[in-house]
């Protein structure tokens, strides 16, 4: 009976295990072998670690990494703080319209990345509604170059991603806050702690595990950024909004295909994700 069930267990897990090995681990091995080769299309020859050396001299790659990290460093903390603030406000029991606010702020999560990116592209276009409205109320006289100025284009991307994901993160914090014992706040109030102090000394430490979780998911998400960039700016102007994922795509399917080098860039992302996740665990996990 025991032996039989042991076999049944392996049977139950067999299909997905097989699929994950075939579609995740095997391709990663292939990608590594590919990263040691160079050439156009399927005309590949073995070059050892040349591609990895090339990474460090490739200015487009460096631009893509810089852009991706700019998004990461500005957007992720901004979004997490905003989501925390909103969740604390929406966690007040006596707040009127809690359900409405919560649903409204969560709503952006139902859009597909391509859909919202396309909307943002037109909202912030040269003759887009944002410029029209700003000119109507005379805040500006000339349209703002949201998408064609290198710095502003990055800023627009950050705004777009923040719009899409803040409500998502907020929901995690709200549900964690519901498990926080309210008497802690009462005690803090009696001790004379201000709301700001309560936020930094009680709320943030209490939510640490979930903040860690959301920051890891957001980091992985940001390092993979693709849909938004392609559909809002296409990576431009120049390469000023290009991300690493988009660069891999371009290397493989847009320029003359260089699969070997594209695979090398892929490994760069994987290594970055692993390093950043470990760092985040170390930083947040120290005391717990």
């Amino acid at each position: 009976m025991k032996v039989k069930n042991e076999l049944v267990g392996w049977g139950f897990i067999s299909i997905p295990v097989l699929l994950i090995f075939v579609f995740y681990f095997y391709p990663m091995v292939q990608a590594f072998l590919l990263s040691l080769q160079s050439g156009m299309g399927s005309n590949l020859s073995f070059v050892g670690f040349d591609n990895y050396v090339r990474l460090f001299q490739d200015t487009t790659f460096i631009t893509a990494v810089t852009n991706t990290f700019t998004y990461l460093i500005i957007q992720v903390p901004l979004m997490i703080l905003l989501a925390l603030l909103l969740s604390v406000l929406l966690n007040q029991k006596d707040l009127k319209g809690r359900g409405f606010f919560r649903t409204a702020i969560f709503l952006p999560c139902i859009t597909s990345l391509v859909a919202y990116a396309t909307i943002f592209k037109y909202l912030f276009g040269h003759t887009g509604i944002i410029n029209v409205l700003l000119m109507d109320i005379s805040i500006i006289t000339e349209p703002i170059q949201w998408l064609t100025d290198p710095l502003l284009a990055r800023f627009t991307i950050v705004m777009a991603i923040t719009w899409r994901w803040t409500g998502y993160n907020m929901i995690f914090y709200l549900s964690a806050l519901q498990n926080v014992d309210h008497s802690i706040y009462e005690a803090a109030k009696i001790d004379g702690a201000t709301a700001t102090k309560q936020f930094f000394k009680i709320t943030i430490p209490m939510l640490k595990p979930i903040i860690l979780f959301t920051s890891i998911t957001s980091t992985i998400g940001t390092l993979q950024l693709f849909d938004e960039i392609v559909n809002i700016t296409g990576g431009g102007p120049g390469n000023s909004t290009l991300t690493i994922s988009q660069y891999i795509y371009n290397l493989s399917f847009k320029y003359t295909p260089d699969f070997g080098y594209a695979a090398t860039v892929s490994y760069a992302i994987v290594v970055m994700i692993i390093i950043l996740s470990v760092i985040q665990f170390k930083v947040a996990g120290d005391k717990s």
Partner: protein
Amino acid sequence: MKILKQIGIYTFLGIATMISIFPFFWMVVSATNSSVDVTAGRLLPGTYLFENFGQLLESTELLTAFYNSSKIAVVTTLLALFISSLAGYGFEVYRSKAKDLVFNILLASMMIPFAALMVPLFRMFATVSNHVPFMGLDSHIAIILPTMTTAFLIFFFRQSTKMFPRDILEAGRMDGLSELGIFIKIYMPTMKTTYAAAAIITFMSSWNNYLWPLVVIQSPNKQTLPLLISNLGSSYAPDYGVIMLAIVLATLPVAIIFFILQKHFVAGMMGSVK
């Protein structure tokens, strides 16, 4: 002082709500306006809805894309749910050291970004194309196969299985049910809410998937909705009303699911984190 604070809080939440809702409002309103009105900044519903719809049907393969997206999302969801729940159940109920090790290896796959898989997967399906064309590049099977199993979904089902009462299993065995019979006849009906949440995440990620279909699909009649929208959006002379209508239509199914199953929807989005 207290009133001022209240005003501050409601203003802040009001602004956040406005920012969250405005793009939706603008999208819906623009879908009913002509392209000229949209660029002029019209924020009131117009009369161009049917004209935009006619234009959309004429200039794109909207219905085909809608059918393709639905077919892929439904098939992916059904397959993913069945095999992932079977595995999550298997890992938990027939727990052993060796299986736990396999499970941990599977979890590592969650760290692999799709961008890293795209090139080797493309080459893999290019090879498949040479031998079995109907499941190689430019086929819907090529979209479904690599995306239907995620370690996350197996993890999600395993976590939920922890709550599943074991005595019921024994009762099922006493009644002479086979192990698979227990899973299908007892486990699946009991775990309805878990399945609902899992169905929502899987359906949504399939419905919204862009990068992999972009790599795989070449024929216009095999396009999915995100590809269609992206193509419309990058055209030289975009018709804003038409594009916004396409986005409304692509968003509608998910929006309907959201409003009907709000609780499951949020539970699904949050996955196993509780």
